[in-house]
Each structure stands twice: as C-alpha cells, then as structure tokens.
C-alpha cells in the first residue's frame, strides 16, 4: 500500500485519497505549484470566456429579435407602434444579462446597473404611453423602494448564520413594507391624499405570520426549551 504525503500540509494521505482533506488540493498539483497557478488561471480565463461567449450570443439573439419586431411592425402597420414596447423590453432584458455577465462579482456595480436599467425602461414606457404621466409619481418611488428593499434582503441573507423559517419571515416583513409603499405612492399620485387601507390589512396578516416563523426558527435553533435562553 503506497501512501502519499501532501506537500502543503505534510500529512500522509491514505490510498484512495485523491485530495488532501485539509488543504483541498491534490498532492500532484500541490507538488508542482507553478502548474497549479497556471491551471487555476486557465480555469478562471475559461470561466470568464464562456460568460462573455454567452453574452455575445444573447446580444445576437436580442438584436435579431429587435430587428424582427421592427420589420414585422413596419410591414403590417407601416410604422413603429407596438414594436417600440417590444424593443424596449428586449433591450432591457439584454442589459440585465450584460450586467450579470460583466459585474457578477462586483455587487455595487451590478446593483447600480440593474436599478438604472429598470428606471430607464420605465421612463421609456412612460414616454411611449401618453397622456398619463405615471413614472415620476408611481414608477420611480416604487421601483427605487423595490431595489432598496431587495438589497436589504440580500444583506440580511448574507449575514444570517442559520437559514430556515427566518428567511421567509424577513421576506414577509419586507413584502409588507413594499405593499405600504405602493399604497402610499399610488394614493398620492391618483387621489392626491394618503389613505393606507389594503396594505395595512396585508401587513396585519404578514407581520404576525413572520413573528410566528421567527419564533419557530429561533426556538428550534435554541433547542428543546427556552430554559437555556432565560436561565438565571
């Protein structure tokens, strides 16, 4: 039986162990460190390359789809009408893909580009659909609120050590807040007064549910009883 020694950790690896459980590298790779560096570089390059290739493909598809919509619109209705909505939606979708392709590991840039793309799409939709001007009154505050709440939610998820019912509970609370925001801004834009009605009912249902979920989650986490938490 031939045992190998991990050059990183210096421990003997039993027969059949291809990777050292401590440093997670194979002894062969660790022995030729130069090779390992090049290998990982190539791996990173190929990962990035394949992402760019997918993005290029999405660009071709988006461009073709836009072109088809415009041609069909022009042939059938002799001008630009519905195709403008389609082009805006397809371009927006492609910009989302672009953001993920280039800023996947840069959360701030990714978040900013997603927000800018969403707002730009909404502005264009608003301009394409006169005479109602809904972007400033409803579209802007609601979409900005959505992204802020979404960012907070992601932050909470990242910070949670133990995930379970608490994920759902946080989502319910954020949903309640989001409903109140929609209610508030739609009232302001449409009635010019604020009456929180339907969102209050939603929140009154969701928040206690979230409370129950929190209780279940943390009680389960803490063990069989709450004696540990409150022992004097």
């Amino acid at each position, binding site marked *: 039986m031939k045992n190998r020694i991990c050059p990183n950790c210096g421990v*003997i*690896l*039993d027969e059949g162990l291809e990777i050292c459980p401590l*440093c997670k590298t194979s002894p062969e790779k660790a022995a030729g460190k130069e090779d390992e560096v090049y290998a990982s570089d190539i791996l990173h390059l190929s990962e990035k390359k394949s992402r760019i290739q997918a993005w290029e493909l999405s660009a071709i598809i988006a461009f073709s789809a836009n072109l088809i919509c415009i041609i069909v619109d022009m042939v059938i209705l002799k001008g630009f009408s519905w195709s403008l909505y389609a082009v805006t939606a397809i371009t927006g979708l492609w910009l989302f893909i672009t953001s993920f392709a280039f800023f996947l590991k840069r959360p701030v840039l990714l978040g900013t580009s997603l927000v800018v793309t969403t707002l730009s799409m909404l502005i264009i939709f608003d301009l394409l659909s006169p005479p109602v001007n809904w972007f400033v009154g409803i579209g802007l505050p609601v979409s900005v609120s959505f992204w802020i709440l979404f960012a907070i939610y992601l932050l909470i998820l990242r910070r949670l050590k133990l995930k379970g019912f608490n994920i759902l509970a946080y989502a319910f609370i954020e949903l309640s807040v989001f409903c109140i925001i929609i209610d508030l801004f739609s009232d302001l834009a449409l009635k010019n007064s604020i009456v929180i009605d339907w969102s209050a009912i939603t929140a009154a249902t969701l928040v206690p549910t979230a409370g129950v979920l929190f209780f279940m989650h943390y009680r389960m986490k803490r063990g069989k009883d709450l004696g540990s938490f409150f022992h004097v």
Partner: protein
Amino acid sequence: MKGKNTELENKGWMSLDNAAKIFPPIISKSLSSVFRIGSVLSEPVKISALNRAVEETCQRFPYYLTSLHRGFFWYYLEYDKDIKPSVVVEDSRPCVAFPAKKGNYVLFRVVVFRNMLSVEFLHILTDGGGALEFFRTLLVTYLRNCGYDIPYSEGIIDPSSPVENSETEDSYSKYFRKEVPFPPKLENAWHLPFEITEKEHLGIIQAEVSVIDLKNISKENNVTITEYLASVYLFVLQEIWKSEKRKDKHILRLEIPINMRRSYPSKTMRNFSLFVLPELDLRLGFFTFEEILKHVHNYMQIQTDKKLLSKVIARNVKPERNIFIRTAPIFIKDLVLSVAFRKHGVTKYSGVLTNVGIASMPLEARKHIDNICMLPPPPVHNLKVSCGALSFNDRLCISFANKTLNTELEREFFSFLTGKGLKVRILKNIWDEK
C-alpha cells in the same frame, strides 16, 4: 459501547462554569484565551486515521461538542451531536481566536502539520487538565487507527466507556461553601517593561529539559519541579526589574494555576483550576535564588492547602449566586465584567507559569511520540509573556508565548537552567518557518 444519554444530551445545553463566565465578554482576536496541547509524532499524521479518531473521541467527550450562545441573563453552551470540530492545518501562529460569539462554532480544534498533532481549546470549555485527558484519548485512538496495538492504559479514557454525568459538573459550585470568607485583596504587581511593537506578533520559544535532572535539582533544594521553575521565573523577573529605570511597583508576583482535581474528588472535564500567587516584595530588598526557593516553597505549601483554596472558590462563586447579579441582563454583566477584567484581570501578577503535569502514555505509544508540549494562551495586555510546561517521557517541555520582540525573559530563564548544569534543548519552531 455508549450507554444511555447523559444529562447534557437530554437537556441540550449547560451553563458556563464559574471560571468560564469571565471569558465571553473579554475574548477577542487579540485576547483569544486559547491554549494548546500538541505532540510531535515519529511519522507524518495520517489524515483518515485522525479523522476517525476525532470522531470516536468526540463521542466520548460530548460536552465538548458545544457552542457558545448568548442568553438573556447568562451565556450558555448548547450541545449539538452533529457539530464537528475543525481539523485544520497549522496556521501562521498558534492559539488564534475562535469566532465563539458568532454562532455555532465548536470551541476546540484539531491542528495538524507534518508530524505535529495538536488540540487547541478555548478556556470556556475546559482547562489544561480536561484538555490533556481529551488529547491523550485522541492520541491513543489515532495510533490504534494507524494499526498499532496500544491499550487504553495509564488512566486514558477509553472512547467506548460510558460518559458520566459528573464529567460535566461545575465543581466550583459543588464545592462552594457560603460561610467561607474571601482571601485578602492584593496590591498591583509590576509588569515587564517590554514594548509591544507588532500587535499580531506571538513569539514561541520551546525547550526541553530532562525531568530526572530537574527532579534531582529540585530535590536537592527540597522543592517540587513547579516550585523550582516558579523560583527561576521570579528570580529572572527580579533581574529584569533591577535593570529597569521606572520602579514604581515593587511586587513581583507569579500566577500559577492549580489543578483542583488533585484536592477535590472531582471528575469534571470542564474548568476546575484555581491560582496561587507567590510573590516577592522588593521593598524588603533583593532576594537570592535560595531565598526565593524557600519563599516560593513555603508559600505554595500553605496556599495549596484545601482550606485556603476554598477561600478562593468562595470569592469566585459567591458573587454569581447574588440574586441581583443573577437577574441582571447579560449586556450589563458584559459591561461590568469587561471593565473589571481590564481593571483587575492581569494587574495583580507579573507572569504566568502553568505546569499541566505529566502526560502519561502507554509504553507501546511512547515510541511513536517524540514529544508533547503545552502552549499557554497568548498573554494579555501588559502581561506580555506567559509560560507553560508539560512532562512526557522523562522530558519537560517548557513553552514561552511572547507578545513582544524582546526575548530577554526566555533567554535569562533558560540560561539560568543551563547555569545550574541542566541540559536545555531548544526545539525547532514551526511558526518561524511559516
């Protein structure tokens, strides 16, 4: 074979013992309170055999499969049979902090590198006595998994033996008697003048001395090995004090942990040690080494008396029984304890000397083990240097952990021993390599 579930397994949690209660509010990256018991084996560690040994040993010591949690009034340890200790490669320095307060982290780790196998424990879980028992079982189980025929003799706990509830008891509370008075308050002690220039630095110097030679020289002076080492330590502190310009404090005091299991019939595997604090008051003049030996010996003989130790137990346990303290919310306790530690924690002593004792191993295991050493927790604040000792196979391993770049204390300490005719072998330091 594992018997019926222990109280801990049924209950799912346990409160911190009296000694552990101070640690949660004060532990941090720079104050890890982590100590290590480690060995150098005759051949590189076989990782599969080790992983199996860790699993088997952990089943026998379920009270170490716990994580620290913050309750409303007190911290507590939550048991989780599925929680696993980390088996990690040696870091750039030993005894790094555990993210204990961040959730479900086991408060000990197994560290390997080449021929080195160690365990590191956060003091919340246990003291040197408990950690040594765990380590001995782990080591024998590992060697058995490597195919060697080694018995669980020399008092080593067999992983298949049943777990006793008494192993998780808070012995401080058990042996506390409320009518016992407190020991007198102490003056603040002098501290080493060395400067901490690099916050992250922890210099380790380890050396081996023959136990027989040390025993002989101690016997000639009618003292124990610990008393002899403590006397050398105090003598060296006095020499450094002499050369210092600022002499506002005159008390040189050493903190020496005492394993209380030797004084009380306790089987606990959690913390059960107290400290004795031999001192030199330099206002009385300088002491010769012989005077220090006599002084330390007499002090230790008196202070390690069970009745006097019960005074220390009373001082430590009585406050936690107070109804106002018990019902104070944890954030208030955190605040008070961290302030109290800063004010009183290490102000009372100039150095620490921990002698964990003898790591007895079966004869069949000894040829596979080159040495066993103990590393004390990295020293805190103005203490700067701490010292740990452990005997194995007729060799005493003395380890110094130093937060400064000044190694005068270690140099003087070992030079003194060589000056007395003892052979001191400085061990190769793995952390300098890294």
